[in-house]
Every structure is written in structure tokens, then in C-alpha cells.
């Protein structure tokens, strides 16, 4: 049983979906502190070939609060704005119709918390990409409360009967192989290929990488995206 534990991101870049598609169980780690300058509620799109960021407005988001506690600001007209931005950016994209409909369903659904809209977006996109993964939310299960760092991750992994834990390569420094091995759990790190390229609307030969999955979905067929999801490597810590 492969397990990943990762903070929730709203419609993140392809590396996040590669991790999601590689594991059997994906735990959305939302009972940790919000990362104010991170990617929980923001990402980038292309408008007329230029990078443009989008953000979901939040109420009292700070690094002293848990992601699971943070509400989306429903007073702002951000839903219409974001949908309009997507419409203007991608209306001529080859897969605009079905993807816009999917995004409209996510963005216009009922939710209060940022983690709720993220869970919904992950479920919808995973289903579209036929990713067979079980998703759970750490704040709803309360496993290993009081533990920090890799100790808590290990407890969560064990609670899912995990035999193999996979983390993004960026976290390699804070993980100890022996610590996982003692519990019979294999530890690996995923790296996205920097060779991922596809034809982007509004760009010639130039390619802008690591945009929101929206850009990937709008410009590629489902089968092409599924192929892109396989372009990663798994390594172990020596």
C-alpha cells in the first residue's frame, strides 16, 4: 500500500497529480499550519502567453492557524472573476468545453472552508483523469496529534496500513530512512521531469512549466495528460 501525505493545494501543478496518481492512499494534510506564501489557495495560468496568478480569497488566513480552520471569503466575487479569467485565457484551447464545465462545477459548489473546495477539486480532477486513489483528510481522522514532522507522517502512514511512503523530493532533508525502515515502511521521493512539454495556447515554441493543472487539462487530451503523469522518477535516500 503506497501512501502520500501532502498539504492541500487548489488545482496545483502537475507534480502534485503525479504524486496523487502514484499512491493508493493520499492523505490531505490539512491540520497543519497554513503556509501564507505557499500554494494552498493560489496558482498560475497563462493569459495571452503571459503568466498570471489567481488566488482564492480567505478569511483571517495566517501561519498561526491550521489550514483546516480557514474559510473562503464568500463575500467577494472571486468565483465569477476566476471563471471569467479562465474563460478569457482558454476559450480557444482544444479541451476548453469539458474542462471549463468541470471547473465551473468545482468553483460554484457549496463550501465554507478552503480544504473543502480543494477536496472537491481533487476528487473531480482525479475522476476525470481516472486516477484510482483513496483520499482522506487528516483533520477528520486526528491520527498522531501532538507528534511533529516525520513522526506524525509515519503514524498517519501506519494508520493507512502503508508499506511505502512517497514524498516530494523537496522534503528529503527532513526524512530519515532508518526511521521508516524500523517500521517496515519503504521511503521514496518523487521528482517531476523537467522535460514535460506540451503545446500551450498563445505560446510558440516557448514553454512555461509548472502552471496550474488547468493549463495542462485545457491543452491536452485526457490520454495525453495521463501520459504526462507518468513522467517522474522515484528515488530513495542514500
Amino acid at each position, binding site marked *: 500500500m503506497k501512501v502520500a501525505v*501532502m*498539504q492541500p*493545494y487548489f488545482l*496545483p*501543478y502537475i*507534480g*502534485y497529480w503525479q*504524486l496523487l496518481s502514484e499512491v493508493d492512499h493520499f492523505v490531505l494534510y490539512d491540520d497543519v499550519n497554513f*503556509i*501564507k*506564501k*505557499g*500554494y494552498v489557495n*493560489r496558482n498560475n495560468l497563462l493569459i495571452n502567453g503571459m503568466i498570471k496568478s489567481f488566488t482564492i480569497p480567505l478569511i483571517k488566513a495566517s*501561519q498561526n492557524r491550521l489550514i483546516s480552520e480557514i474559510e473562503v471569503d464568500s463575500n467577494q466575487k472571486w468565483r465569477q472573476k476566476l471563471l471569467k479569467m479562465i474563460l478569457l485565457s482558454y476559450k480557444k484551447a482544444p479541451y476548453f468545453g469539458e474542462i471549463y464545465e468541470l471547473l465551473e462545477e468545482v468553483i460554484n459548489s457549496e463550501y465554507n472552508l478552503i480544504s473543502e473546495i480543494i477536496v472537491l477539486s481533487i476528487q473531480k480532477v482525479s475522476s476525470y483523469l481516472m486516477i484510482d486513489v483513496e483520499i482522506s483528510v487528516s483533520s477528520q481522522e486526528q491520527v498522531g496529534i501532538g507528534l511533529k514532522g516525520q513522526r506524525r507522517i509515519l503514524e498517519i502512514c501506519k494508520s493507512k496500513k502503508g508499506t511505502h511512503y512517497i*514524498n*516530494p*523530493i*523537496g*522534503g*528529503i*532533508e*527532513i526524512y530519515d530512512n532508518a526511521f521508516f525502515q524500523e517500521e517496515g515502511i519503504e521511503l521514496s*521521493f*518523487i*521528482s*517531476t*521531469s*523537467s522535460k*514535460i512539454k506540451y503545446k500551450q495556447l498563445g505560446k510558440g515554441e516557448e514553454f512555461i*512549466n*509548472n502552471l496550474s493543472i488547468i493549463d495542462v487539462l485545457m491543452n491536452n487530451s485526457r490520454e495525453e495528460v495521463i501520459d504526462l503523469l507518468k513522467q517522474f522518477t522515484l528515488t530513495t535516500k*542514500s
Partner: protein
Amino acid sequence: MKLYEIISETFNVKTSELTNDTMFLELDGWDSMAHMMFITNLEDAFEIDFEGDDIVNVSTIGELKDLLKKYEVVEL
């Protein structure tokens, strides 16, 4: 400046706040997923492929500059 722009864009930090001693783990926007994105941004921008544990052993901007020099990146 290219390097500082990549760091700034990936971790949502001002370039003026960055020095050679800045540790990636201590940036406000750091998490392991953002760091993974950062690695592909570097490989793409400088047209290199990091080998083995090279990039994962880097903790500070200064160490990253040294590593990029090893990969014959001249313009940082």
C-alpha cells in the same frame, strides 16, 4: 538575477530578502511540493539535469550557486 527571480516566483518572496545565507527550508513559502517545483524550474531555466543527490544536499542559496557553477551555469 535569473536565479533570484526563480526563487522569488516559486516561494513568493521578495528578491531583496534573499542572501547567500538564506536557507530554503526557512522561506515562508517553503514546503516539499514547492521545493520539487523549484528543482524543475531550475533545470528548465538553466537547461541542466541535476545528477544523484546533488540538488538535495543543497540547503542555502550560496550552496546552490556553487552547485550551479559545477554544472557550468555562468549567468546566475
